[in-house]
């Protein structure tokens, strides 16, 4: 099976997809060419007419040259999304004969409805860079199938007389750069075969491109796709996390030391709300991947794979901490797999098609989680009034952040996340439902804006109608929680927005 494209062929594929979908997407190029001069292009998908306030998602592949499945998966996913959008068809990733290991007892495979995909594409800015290390990619195809780094020639020579070549692009970012958490995973030695971090943070054009891109675009979700461990990883990679002392954070650490963090008891701070969010979304992704063919992906911090510094996803997430004016980006590593007995077959299986289904399901799940149906409705309501839309968005996110603070609140948000695909599907396909949901969002915004306003009986009836409507089309395991939501909402006549939020923060739907 001819499974893997050259860098040029990957570029031709995304150019052709863009040419066939000119109103939905276009190609773009990253700021700098590679060390050997290759122009690095990607695909920007942004269907529909809505302007501004879209959540941004960046999917990155091919950082490590030998991990050949991931550029293929990203290009494949782009094609699947564009075909679904053009034809109005569902996307199903399934392998006949596999056991459904996902929750519930639905049909085999992971399916996303055409309407949900359309709404997702019309509410997100999706940026895909299938292959960010073109020189390394083609070197794998032409010369050394286990090459990992870029192709930067370094000065000097190594012990065996060869010239040192290459920097690990996933060790070259400005997050605890040049600190060596343990042997083998990061190195300051240019002769290191695989994990040389480079002479300085962002010394390499291929990694500097990511820094520049994140500076220029408000990216909410970033996923760097690697192989091969069947993991969904979130920050941090350089130290175990702690959630109690914000002052113990990476900005206090020396960089470029080429030695470990001096204090072996050091723990990196992560906002507890972010940690729960990472864990919840990670579990949702793992659940969706399991539906495809039963693959078990484990969710955890990056350090659970092995300690690292200077990686892309952690740099992305660190930006808003290092610079409070920077946009907050949730950074993920998706490690696809599995290990199949030896390293060559694991990085470059002769038939990667089943694994690519898993990878695509993981990325599509993350995309679906990144599209907020209520934000989408809110954006529609406020139309071209960008300031009002931004206020509304800020309000929604503030209330969401408050709910994250309690167990019951998090349970509600979890229910809402699980309902994303159903909500998006209904918004896309049912004008009446879309209108009723829009009214509810309007009511919520009006109540939030006026502390003296309270929920009326009419408001309650409108809300119950939407809940009943939603329950009728939701998966069975979510209906019980929706019944709880119904019972709770029924009691809220006369409540202010603040009072309603307080009740929801204390009463779980479970």
């Amino acid at each position, binding site marked *: *099976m*001819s*499974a*893997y*494209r*050259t860098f040029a*062929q990957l570029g*031709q*594929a995304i150019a*052709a*997809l863009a040419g*066939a*979908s*000119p109103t*939905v997407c276009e190609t773009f190029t990253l700021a700098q060419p590679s060390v050997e001069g290759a122009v690095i292009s990607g695909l920007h998908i942004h269907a529909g007419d809505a302007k501004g306030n879209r959540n941004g998602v960046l999917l990155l592949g091919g950082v490590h040259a030998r991990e050949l499945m991931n550029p293929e998966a990203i290009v494949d996913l782009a094609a699947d999304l564009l*075909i679904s*959008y*053009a*034809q*109005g068809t569902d996307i199903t990733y399934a392998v006949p004969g596999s056991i459904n290991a996902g929750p519930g007892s639905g049909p085999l495979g992971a399916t996303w409805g055409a309407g949900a995909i359309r709404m997702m594409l019309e509410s997100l800015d999706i940026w895909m860079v299938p292959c960010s290390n073109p020189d390394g990619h083609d070197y*794998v*195809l*032409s*010369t*050394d*199938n*286990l*090459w*990992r780094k870029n192709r930067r020639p*370094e000065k000097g*020579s*190594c*012990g*065996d*007389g*060869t*010239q*040192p*070549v*290459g920097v690990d692009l996933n060790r070259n970012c400005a997050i605890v750069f040049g600190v060596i958490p343990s*042997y*083998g*995973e990061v*190195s300051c030695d240019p*002769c*290191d*075969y*695989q*994990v040389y971090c480079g002479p300085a943070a962002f010394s390499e054009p291929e990694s500097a491109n990511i820094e520049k891109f994140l500076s220029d675009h408000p990216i909410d979700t970033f996923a760097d796709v690697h192989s*091969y*461990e069947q993991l969904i990883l979130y920050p941090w990679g350089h130290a175990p996390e702690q959630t109690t002392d914000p002052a113990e954070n990476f900005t206090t650490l020396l960089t470029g030391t080429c030695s470990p963090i001096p204090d072996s008891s050091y723990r990196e701070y992560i906002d507890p709300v972010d940690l729960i969010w990472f864990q919840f979304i990670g579990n949702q992704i793992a659940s969706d991947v399991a539906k495809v063919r039963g693959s078990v992906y484990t969710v955890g911090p990056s350090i659970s*794979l*092995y300690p690292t510094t200077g990686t892309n996803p952690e740099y992305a997430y660190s930006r808003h901490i290092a610079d409070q004016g920077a946009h907050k980006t949730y950074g993920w590593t998706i*490690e696809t797999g599995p*290990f199949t007995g*030896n*390293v*060559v077959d694991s990085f*470059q299986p*002769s038939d990667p098609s089943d694994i690519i289904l898993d990878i695509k399901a993981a990325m599509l799940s993350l995309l679906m989680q990144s599209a907020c149906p209520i934000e989408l409705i809110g954006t529609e309501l406020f139309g071209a009034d960008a300031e009002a839309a931004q206020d509304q968005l800020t309000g929604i996110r503030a209330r969401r952040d408050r709910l994250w603070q309690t167990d019951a609140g998090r349970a509600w948000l979890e229910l809402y996340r699980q309902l994303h695909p159903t909500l998006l599907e209904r918004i896309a396909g049912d004008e009446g439902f879309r209108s009723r949901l829009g009214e509810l969002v309007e009511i919520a915004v009006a109540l939030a804006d006026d502390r003296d306003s309270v929920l009326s009986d009419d408001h309650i009836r409108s809300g119950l109608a939407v809940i009943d409507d939603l329950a009728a089309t939701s998966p069975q395991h979510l209906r019980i929680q929706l019944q709880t939501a119904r019972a709770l909402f029924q009691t809220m006549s006369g409540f202010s927005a603040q009072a309603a939020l307080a009740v929801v923060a204390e009463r779980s739907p479970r």
Partner: protein
Amino acid sequence: MGTAAGSSQSAAGVRLEAIILPRTSPDPDALRGLDVLPPLDGELHVLISPSQIAEVVRAGYEVRVFAAHPIGPLDPDLVMDDAAAQAWIEERVAKIRGGRRS
């Protein structure tokens, strides 16, 4: 001028896939420069050259080799040719253009 890796792995002609276990008073300095892979059953999993094996063993480790990989390009049968790449494009583009929205 050498063309590649800057380590003896590139010059040896073969990479050995192995797990490494500590034996007697191991010196972790000897592990520098190895191609460390995700752990295998909790053990240190590496690609290593024959000459590196000798150094690592001398430094107090046991090396269990279980696969050998000749250094060379990807199996040419796995590289998509231009005709296949073009066929992939044409199939997808036809589906997009045949749809309602594009």
